[in-house]
């Protein structure tokens, strides 16, 4: 059940009505039942995998907390279990159909069909939540869950089940334990998040996807440089608005249940360096990687040689972290290249601070801030070429990319479609995420009417919204 479908709207409304008829404790049981029902609509096998993950992580955390002698071993068993589960589904999904096809070819059969492992939707997100939970229990930063239902809800909670945000048990579990307060302010914020999310996804992202011509990916040499550049920009805006739209919607939905989810985006295309970019783009993943990969690795190295100028300290943690980020997205070479590029970006931007005084970006002259913003956007877009085109075609893409620049034939619809997204970013960058709620009543009503019309118009053009880009992870 896609969360942009009418069926999901009906499902969420039904769950909400029953939810508010129940006392607090049964509310959690109801949410868990609804989460499982939602997950089963994708495939019943997913529910089996989810249950296994819940039971193993729940049991291991209890064992880690109870047995000081084998804590470390149990932690590594838990991390190994989660990583292997992820690798099994991600890599098997890649290799099994290939092996079946080869076997069929060898037997003289037509390729295709045969056994195929399904990657449980949202598995990558659950795995990271499971690992952070085990590590935090091991470090005594959180008590192992005593209630299986609450823990199950931590992994399975349906608004965040498909693509996060990646929550931490120590901040999520208190929200399950406390009474749900949904006052007027929470309602207003939740609805605003849902409307902004719908506009980002349906009006900006889905229409951009329709407008980006497939030929420009396959045969860039047939187009002039301006069109290829415009496609790249549109691609970057599509990716961002698709995922930011999803996050906004699910945060809004969860707010209606009185459970606040973490923000995942904070106007990333206004970042002035890549450190800032990763604090604004897919924030919960960036912070997970920082806390469980970058910091442990960095601190281990710094204990041996506590200097910023040491090459190993400078190079290894960002490269390793971003390569793991690439692998987490998908077991493919193009995401490794993407990760390596982002690792290199972070290393290079740190180099001047090794010998020059550090000046915070806010104190840079405006012209330098502007150039830095454009530079970060351009480099981020270039890193997405292997993401969008594929590794084998990337060299061809570069080789065939044209050098003549012309504004003739530029699709103005692409530019027009990006405008609402850019405008939303600008307002939120200048006035904060909930700026629209501070507008006068008439302005808010007008804006809502425009958003409603834009969403209806977009649905006329793209009647079946494509799935979210991160849904595949």
């Amino acid at each position, binding site marked *: 059940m896609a969360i942009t479908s009418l069926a999901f709207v009906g499902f969420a409304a039904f769950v909400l009505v029953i939810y508010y008829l129940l006392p607090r404790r049964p509310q959690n049981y109801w949410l868990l039942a609804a989460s499982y029902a939602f997950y089963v609509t994708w495939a019943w096998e997913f529910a089996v995998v989810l249950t296994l993950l819940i039971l193993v992580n729940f049991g291991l955390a209890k064992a880690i907390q109870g047995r000081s002698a084998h804590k470390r071993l149990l932690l590594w068993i838990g991390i190994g279990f989660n990583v292997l589960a992820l690798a099994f589904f991600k890599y098997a999904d890649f290799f099994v159909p290939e092996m079946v096809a080869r076997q069929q070819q060898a037997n003289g059969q037509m390729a295709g069909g045969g056994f195929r492992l399904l990657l449980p939707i949202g598995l990558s997100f659950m795995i990271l939540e499971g690992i952070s939970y085990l590590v935090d229990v091991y470090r005594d930063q959180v008590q192992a869950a005593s209630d299986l239902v609450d823990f199950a809800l931590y992994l399975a909670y349906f608004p965040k089940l498909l693509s996060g945000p990646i929550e931490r048990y120590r901040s999520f579990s208190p929200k399950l334990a406390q009474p749900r307060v949904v006052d007027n302010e929470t309602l207003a914020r939740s609805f605003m998040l849902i409307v902004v999310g719908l506009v980002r996804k349906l009006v900006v992202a889905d229409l951009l996807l329709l407008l980006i011509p497939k030929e420009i990916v396959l045969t860039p040499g047939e187009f002039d440089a301006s069109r290829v550049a415009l496609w790249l920009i549109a691609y970057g805006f599509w990716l961002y608005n698709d995922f930011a739209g999803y996050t906004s919607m699910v945060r809004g939905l969860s707010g209606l249940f009185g459970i606040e989810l973490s923000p995942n985006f904070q106007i990333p295309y206004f970042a002035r360096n890549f450190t800032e970019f990763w604090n604004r783009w897919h924030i919960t993943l960036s912070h997970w990687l920082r806390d469980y990969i970058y*910091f442990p690795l960095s601190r281990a190295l710094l204990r041996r040689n*506590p200097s910023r100028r040491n090459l190993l300290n400078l190079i290894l943690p960002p490269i390793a972290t971003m390569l793991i980020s690439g692998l987490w997205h998908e077991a493919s070479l193009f995401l490794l290249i993407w990760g390596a590029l982002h690792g290199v970006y972070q290393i290079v931007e740190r180099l001047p601070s090794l010998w020059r005084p550090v000046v915070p970006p806010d104190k840079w002259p405006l012209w330098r801030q502007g150039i830095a913003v454009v530079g970060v956007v351009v480099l981020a877009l270039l890193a997405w070429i292997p993401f969008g085109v594929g590794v084998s075609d990337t060299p061809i893409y570069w080789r065939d990319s044209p050098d003549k620049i012309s504004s003739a034939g530029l699709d103005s619809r692409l530019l027009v479609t990006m405008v609402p997204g850019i405008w939303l970013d600008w307002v939120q960058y200048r006035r904060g995420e909930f700026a629209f709620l501070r507008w006068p009543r008439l302005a808010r009503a007008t804006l809502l009417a425009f958003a409603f019309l834009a969403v209806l118009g977009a649905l006329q053009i793209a009647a079946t919204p494509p799935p979210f880009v991160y849904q595949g992870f």
Partner: protein
Amino acid sequence: MDPNEVRNSLRAFVLKELLNNPSYPIEDDEPLITSGLVDSLSLALIGVFAEESFGVYIPDTDLTAENLDTLNQMVDRIVSDGNRET
């Protein structure tokens, strides 16, 4: 643990080792992480500095802008953890 001693030691470390600028007029309440003065590598260094100079281990998940954005927050954390351990 004397907060002033921790503050002076931390200030000198941040200015010399992290900012390369001993004359930078750092305020006790000035945001260091959210302003971009201190990046993740510097934050990891602050964690190691707290371990080695004051014997205080700040967990990786606590090395965040919410906990340690200003000199005051860093001093409070080190002093309270240090006093708890002694």
